């Protein structure tokens, strides 16, 4: 295969990613899922809304997939990221990597998620149990606080 990166609104299906990265020479497959959890920074969460600068996000995701393939020496790599409204325990991101050897599969997977979080223009607004919503600033404060 060639590395794939997809940004979409459908549910992420792990089985699809696992099938995509399978190859006869691979001895290790690693699947990472980022999922919506019910609490963040001590606040009850009911769901998350993901939005993006879609053209640029797609471009960055594709670049990360290709860079990871070259850096960790495997073409068998898929990244998917959801957009839109997600409920609890739905996967917002999935990264599948297959490699002849497990060490590089772990390293590639970890590198991809860190790069994705560092540079892909995607934003999320958490919906809280108290009915409020806030854009999340992963540097440790809510967007509302940043701008005060």
């Amino acid at each position, binding site marked *: 295969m060639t590395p794939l990166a997809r940004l979409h609104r459908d549910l992420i299906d792990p089985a699809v990613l696992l099938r995509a990265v399978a190859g006869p020479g691979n001895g290790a497959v690693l699947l990472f899922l980022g999922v919506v959890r019910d609490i963040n920074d001590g606040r009850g969460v009911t769901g998350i809304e993901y939005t993006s*600068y879609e053209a*640029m996000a797609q471009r960055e995701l594709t670049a990360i997939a290709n860079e990871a393939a070259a850096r960790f020496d495997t073409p068998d790599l898929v990244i998917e990221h959801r957009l839109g409204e997600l409920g609890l325990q739905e996967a917002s991101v999935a990264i599948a990597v297959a490699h002849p050897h497990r060490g590089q599969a772990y390293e590639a997977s970890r590198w991809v998620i860190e790069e994705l*979080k560092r540079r892909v223009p*995607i934003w999320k607004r958490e919906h809280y149990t108290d009915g409020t919503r806030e*854009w999340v600033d992963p540097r440790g404060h809510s*967007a509302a606080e*940043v*701008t005060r």
Partner: protein
Amino acid sequence: MMSVTVLLFASYADALGASSISIDLPVGATVADVMRDLRRRPGADRLPPAPLLAVNERYAPVTCRLVEGDEVAVIPPVAGG
């Protein structure tokens, strides 16, 4: 004069009350000129001093020179994953 499109997202779009703004600038203007224009608008006090910026879907410094039709994006702290 030339015209560029400014894209705003997430909390920045909320702050300025728009997700896309067309701005007219003198030929040879840079991203810094776009930011100066933006900062005069209502709600711009809620932008940080040095936000991330992109020109035509690529991260770019504030010194980047623009041409007619360029797309400048002001990028809030990314929160993918």
